[in-house]
């Protein structure tokens, strides 16, 4: 049987191969003790980073990162050509770290033990979209968050500061295209921070809206949106 302390150390050094890493992350989803140990080992590997001793970055890198952040709009992505080739696998790998750093395992996942595998996969998918370097970001008007859309139209929402939906109610996500609202998923707002993949893709010129509906969801919105995104 594997010693999880040793695996935690190896994981914090990124010394696991792809399969080992995936298995360990599966374990992490259910083990608060290992998550705590990992946080403490990450502090040590963070210290190791300071002793790496590499050269200073080229000044242009700062400008490029800031320009990219500024230009989170359709079709204006000042990336070097290499960015045209990121492997899906590597994006997913970064996504897993991000999910851990964000505490997503702690909040939405450990609560759902029997559905943990599915939940883990869907969070990883959502975070993969959020970190896709070619994706673009459109803010919500009237809420703290945004929609992230990949070049293939896959999309995730990032929202924070929402109140939990009242008893018997649920938040509903809609993709509104050509004046028609298509259901794109539900959430209850019990996490103060939400990262969720939309269940349908988002075409150009669409918006993403959120309404409050009866639990279980409805085929079409019953009222005006609580808030919606700018045009994608």
């Amino acid at each position, binding site marked *: 049987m594997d010693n999880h302390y040793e695996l935690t150390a190896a994981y914090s050094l990124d010394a696991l*191969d792809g399969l080992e890493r995936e298995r360990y992350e599966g374990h992490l989803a259910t083990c608060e003790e290992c998550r705590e140990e990992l946080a403490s080992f*990450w502090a040590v590997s963070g210290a190791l980073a300071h002793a790496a001793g*590499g050269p*200073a970055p080229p000044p242009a890198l*700062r400008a490029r990162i800031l320009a990219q*952040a*500024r230009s989170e709009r359709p079709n204006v992505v000042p990336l070097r050509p290499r960015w045209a080739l990121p492997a899906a696998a590597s994006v997913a790998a970064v996504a897993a770290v991000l999910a851990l750093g964000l505490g997503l395992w702690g909040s939405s996942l450990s609560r759902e033990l029997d559905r943990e595998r599915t939940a883990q996969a869907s969070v990883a998918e959502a975070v993969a979209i959020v970190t896709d370097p070619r994706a673009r970001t459109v803010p919500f008007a009237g809420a703290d968050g945004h929609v992230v859309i990949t070049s293939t139209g896959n999309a995730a929402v990032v929202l924070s500061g929402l109140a939990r939906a009242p008893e018997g109610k649920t938040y509903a996500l809609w993709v509104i295209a050509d004046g028609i609202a298509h259901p794109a998923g539900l959430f209850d707002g019990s996490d103060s921070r939400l990262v969720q993949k939309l269940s349908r893709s988002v075409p150009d010129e669409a918006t993403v809206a959120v309404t409050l509906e009866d639990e279980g969801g409805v085929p079409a919105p019953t009222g005006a949106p609580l808030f919606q995104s700018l045009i994608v």
Partner: protein
Amino acid sequence: MRIRDHAHLSDEALVALVARSDQGALAELYDRVGGVAYGLAYRVLRDESLAEDAVQEAFLGLWRAAATFIPERAKASSWILTLVHRRAVDLVRREERRRSEPLEVVPEATTGSAEESAWLHLERERVQHALRRLPDQQREAIELAYYGGFTQSELAERLGQPLGTIKSRMFSGLARLRELLDEGAEKDAWTTTTS
């Protein structure tokens, strides 16, 4: 734009501002962590443009997902460095360019103020000192894994040791390093205790 008007804020406060699309806060975080991040990525990748990619991707992830960062879980700087490291290791494995020899001596990486440069210099000395105090085999395993990008199985093969031995060297080395770093932090802490 005013220069460094976020300089007094903590890393975690900056992440909260980044979540509100504050570009000044992103710039300040880059100024604090970008130099170390790039140095780390370069040490692993030994390639300038790949190192830039790793850093850029981490900061982009931060920009987009900062709203969901939970400060209690991790320090913002170690979170960013973890992202950079993971990306660098994945790239180096894909590109088959792993190197184990140490870096030639280069000027220290700085992107921030003089105070930060001084702090980074001290931090680098402190960690290097702690690393030197590890037993050779533990230090070797940690350095090859973290700076070289080798997996534990590759290390076992390369060093001609059973996998279990490598795992235990990495674990013991990291645990010892954690102690040494804590010790150092306590010793450096301001104190008036004389008993």
